[in-house]
């Protein structure tokens, strides 16, 4: 394992500290317990948005703290959801008196820890609503799994719900918007190589010279199936088709197409995937009216990509277009 790190045990704290030093105009880092909030603190009268989860998915979530998106983010240990305490403190730091929305990715650990934090916050008279993002169609949503994982869709939920909060909607309505995004977004990813968790020191999984893992999770959890290496167009089809099936899009609908890199794949390859996905959607009569391409929710240095499709209506489009001023997503600010 070769990484630009010092002690593997210090990766998260050193990294978040560097993040705070680099972006003082946008964020403030609270060191103990560890969370990141807006430089200016909570916005009075605005619904606060808090998300978090294991580290290793940067820029998620701290990169999305700022005007028009999150009020606070809670980075856990590497790939390990944070404990309730920092989530509680972040919730307090995000509360402007209008309640706080927790945006939780659907993993047992995240759900349990945020649940506890929400209870603790309620005990301190902060109204908390939680939404759980579960957009990964690689996992069957059934009795036989912990339910679909939250992946790429999370970024879109944070952006759109963040815009709703910023324009002054109340907690109930921000949560409703978030739920609408969750209902209309689906994702699936593929890995060409594994990531290596610093404290583990070796790759989470082994892929042969000519193998690809289809349906990979963002923690290197193995996916649906392992297939021989294939051209980008074919991999794109394998990711996009289940997404489209699950969304059952009709001709004439509009979508946001989000091609996400897992961290170790060149941008040029993401655009190859984007181009083909765009063609497939166009051939089905679906209009790609918004796009996002880049490393927005990663899995350390994993090579691979995920495709996320969000069905858009006018409200969601407007909220997507609203100004945003975070470290990793910025437009109009």
């Amino acid at each position: 394992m070769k990484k630009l790190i010092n002690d593997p045990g210090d990766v998260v704290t050193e990294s978040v500290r560097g993040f705070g030093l680099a972006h003082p105009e946008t964020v403030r880092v609270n060191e103990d317990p560890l969370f990141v909030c807006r430089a200016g603190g909570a916005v009075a009268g605005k619904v606060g948005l808090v998300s978090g989860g294991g580290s290793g998915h940067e820029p998620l979530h701290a990169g999305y703290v700022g005007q028009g998106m999150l009020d606070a983010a809670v980075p856990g240990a590497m790939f390990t959801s944070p404990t309730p305490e920092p989530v509680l403190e972040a919730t307090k730091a995000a509360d402007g008196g209008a309640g706080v929305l927790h945006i939780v990715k659907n993993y047992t650990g995240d759900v349990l820890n945020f649940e506890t934090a929400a209870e603790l916050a309620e005990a301190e008279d902060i109204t908390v609503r939680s939404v759980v993002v579960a957009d990964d169609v690689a996992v069957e949503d059934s009795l036989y799994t912990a339910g679909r994982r939250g992946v790429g869709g999370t970024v879109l939920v944070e952006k759109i719900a963040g815009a709703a909060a910023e324009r002054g909607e109340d907690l109930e309505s921000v949560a409703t918007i978030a739920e609408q995004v969750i209902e209309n977004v689906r994702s699936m990813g593929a890995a060409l190589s594994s990531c290596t968790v610093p404290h583990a020191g070796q790759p989470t999984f082994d892929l042969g010279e000519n193998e690809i893992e289809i349906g990979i999770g963002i923690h290197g959890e193995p996916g649906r199936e392992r297939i021989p290496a294939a051209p980008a167009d074919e991999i794109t089809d394998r990711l996009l088709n289940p997404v489209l099936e699950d969304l059952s899009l009709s001709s004439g609908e509009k979508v946001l197409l989000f091609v996400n890199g897992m961290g170790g794949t060149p941008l040029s390859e993401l655009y190859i995937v984007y181009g083909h996905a765009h063609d497939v959607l166009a051939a089905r009569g679906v209009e790609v009216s918004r796009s996002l391409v880049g490393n927005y929710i990663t899995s350390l240095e994993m090579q691979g990509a995920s495709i996320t499709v969000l069905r858009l209506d006018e409200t969601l489009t407007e909220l997507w277009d609203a100004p945003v001023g975070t470290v990793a997503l910025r437009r109009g600010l």
Partner: protein
Amino acid sequence: MATDTLGHAWALDWMERARAAVSAERIALIDLDRAIGDGDHGENMDRGFTAVTAKLATQAPGSPGEVLKTAATTLMSTVGGAAGPLYGTAFLRASKAAGDAVDGDGVVALLDAAVEGIQARGKAEPGEKTMVDAWVPAARAAREAAADGPVAALRAAAEAAATGAAETEPMVATKGRASYLGQRSAGHRDPGAQSTALLLQAAAEAAEAQ
């Protein structure tokens, strides 16, 4: 004859042995979790139990209940992931059941409470390839041995947990991160069941050393 009741010294020794065991098996637990999860379980448990013994070193708990309560809150606030809230709740409930001293029936009460806590939080049933598959047989075995005193009960529990952990190998996971793998989870031991076996082995050894 075996010790009749176990007090705070036992509980402190348990936590110290748990820390040592989890630390020694850190890589092994990581490897189990790499196979069917995300490779952090050993790191999480090591971080948690290191914090537990550090915390206990600053306190002078007078009962097993107090020791386990400190363990519970420390695990809750340092482990994270799925294991943190589950073990945290297990030890919190166990601490209430443990009270001031633990006899044979006390061991049963303690383990039953832990199982209830884990199931209340995680909603897993036996056979779903989780730590429940180590805790449930452990509690059952303790009940059968309870009449022989707490040491025997813990020894029985430890052995049943080890067997239970081994028996997760062929199972197909339907809870936790391993469930994403479906059929492909079969053939690997569940890391949480394995760490439970380590913890209960530590409990039995600590009892035997009293």
